[in-house]
């Protein structure tokens, strides 16, 4: 059996381990368009900040591929997939055969779509190469403009600030982190960042990138000119599905998968940022492009490719981030726009403490925690298990809220993962 895995990050590596765990003899090939063994993509901001060296970013030991008899093909892009004859075509024209294929191609940064975007000094922030290129620029850089006040943009800005660069975040919408947290907490985080000398301007977009060959500045849509020596684009990502656009594999935003992470073609699976799965809260198809989700996708898709029938329960939007010592966690559905939701908030703006929970039909569907994030996972467990919390909603925002207050509620529910209950019995834990 020939297993082929396109993508060498969280989903790819976990799939490899799952397959190898079940089948020691099969052939496994991993293809990556980057030139590195698998690394922790989320840590490229630590690399840029100078707190991590390249060596510290490795996701697995150096000899992982050798020990697991994996053929690793680096620096090659997959041009197209031909499900009819179970082959893929590489950028150099070479074809490879497979029996089972995993699409873990990830996503790419969206572009600004303005004139001058191709100048030297304009970067996405997705790969180790991006971080390296930006690093090289630092000695001759005073100021960097970052377009996009989402997680990627802010992480890049935080990293550059640690290197002593002037950072300005420019966000099109009226506030930062608009896809991640709610208005109130975003305002608090914005204030915290500005207090730590990161400039934030909202409601602005670029019109033109200025300079000859190198970036020298930007013309904004309010006709204002800003000088800068570098630009980072963090306005979102799009799944890498170009390689299958002419094939019979069905796509929507990403690759459409069923509950076994299988595509409409039986021997082709998908996982990670490219896979469209069911959202656990809404039940709608979605892409939750998260490290946690990618890891789980990889493992489950890998097991299923190797002959198991393991269901993927669905993904949940959940993010954790820390800027200058202020932790921020967002879980599930937090940006309420419609009726039918109940919100409970506790805020201490001067202390940078914020807690909010969102309920629907007596169930917890979302939470935002800023400052004190202890027990965040207990909220996530309540969301995941769709527990009726109407009896305890008054204590959910208290600082003394913890697992013991909901242990009975949680243990009543059948879940997916095995663990040990307080009574010492093996229970299924979602």
């Amino acid at each position, binding site marked *: 059996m020939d297993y082929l895995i396109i993508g060498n990050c969280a989903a790819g590596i976990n799939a490899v381990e799952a397959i190898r765990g079940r089948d020691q003899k099969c052939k496994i090939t991993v293809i990556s368009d980057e030139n590195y063994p698998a690394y*922790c*993509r*989320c*840590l490229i901001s*630590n690399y840029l900040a100078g*707190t*991590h060296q390249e060596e*510290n970013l*490795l*996701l*697995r030991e150096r000899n992982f591929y050798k020990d697991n008899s994996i053929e690793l093909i680096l620096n090659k892009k997959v041009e197209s997939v031909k499900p009819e004859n179970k082959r893929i075509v590489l950028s150099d024209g070479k074809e490879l055969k497979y029996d089972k294929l995993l699409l873990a191609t990830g996503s790419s940064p969206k572009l600004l779509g303005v004139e001058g975007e191709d100048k030297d000094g304009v970067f996405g922030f997705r790969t180790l190469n991006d971080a390296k290129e930006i690093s090289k620029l630092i000695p001759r850089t005073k100021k960097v403009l970052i377009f996009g006040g989402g997680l990627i943009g802010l992480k890049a800005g935080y990293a550059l600030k640690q290197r002593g660069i002037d950072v300005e975040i420019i966000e099109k919408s009226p506030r930062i982190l608009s896809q991640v947290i709610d208005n109130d907490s975003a305002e608090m985080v914005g204030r915290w960042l500005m207090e730590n000398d990161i400039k934030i301007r909202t409601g602005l977009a670029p019109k033109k990138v200025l300079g000859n060959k190198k970036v020298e500045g930007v013309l904004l849509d309010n006709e204002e000119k800003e000088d800068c020596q570098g630009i980072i684009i963090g306005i979102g990502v799009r799944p890498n599905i170009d390689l299958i656009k002419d094939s019979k594999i069905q796509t929507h935003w990403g690759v459409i998968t069923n509950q076994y992470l299988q595509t409409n073609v039986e021997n082709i699976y998908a996982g990670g940022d490219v896979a469209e799965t069911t959202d656990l809260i809404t039940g709608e198809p979605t892409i939750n492009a998260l*490290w*946690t989700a990618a*890891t*789980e996708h990889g*493992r489950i898709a890998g097991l299923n490719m190797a002959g198991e029938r393991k269901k993927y329960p669905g993904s949940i939007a*959940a*993010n*954790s*981030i*820390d800027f200058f*010592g202020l*932790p921020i*966690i967002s*879980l599930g559905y937090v940006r309420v726009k419609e009726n039918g939701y109940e919100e409970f908030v506790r805020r201490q703006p001067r202390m940078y403490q914020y807690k909010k929970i969102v309920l629907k039909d007596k169930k917890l569907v979302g939470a935002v925690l800023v400052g004190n*994030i*202890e*027990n*965040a*996972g*207990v909220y*996530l*467990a309540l969301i*995941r298990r769709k527990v009726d919390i109407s009896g*305890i909603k008054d204590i959910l925002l208290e600082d003394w809220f*913890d*697992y*013991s*207050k909901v*242990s*009975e509620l*949680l243990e009543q529910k059948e879940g997916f*993962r*095995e*663990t*040990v209950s*307080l009574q*010492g019995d*093996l229970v299924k*834990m*979602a």
Partner: protein
Amino acid sequence: MERCLSCRSCEIACAVEHSQSKDLFSSLREEPRPRPRTKVERDTKLRTFPLQCRHCEEPYCIDACISGAVSKDPETGLVLLDENKCVGCWMCVMVCPFGVIRPAKERKIALRCDLCQEREEPACVTACPTKALFFGELEEFKEKFLERKEISSKVKV
């Protein structure tokens, strides 16, 4: 669970065991201050018990860790954190359904129970004056539990 008096001796023993000096009085002056990885919690029926990492079969924290710092020891089954690799992103804090992984207040690392790898028996178990804590395999606990015909403690597996 009936035996726990909520004296929090386990918390103190845990903090001391994870200090540099491993001595109660010297550790009080240490920087960063030693912190416990176990916490006595009180449920809605006012029963108290110490709670720490359950070392889950399929741990959420391993999936969530962005730096590869959390791993499961293939031999012992313990879920352990490499503090040198931990970057303090709090992803594990975010996903732990028991809320037993906590951010260290002075350091950017997550704190979690390692069942006192260097000791024969975890410090919290040794410290418990009422023997509410038991250290051993689940089967062993069940046997003892059946023998004694009493609810005695919480299990660590």
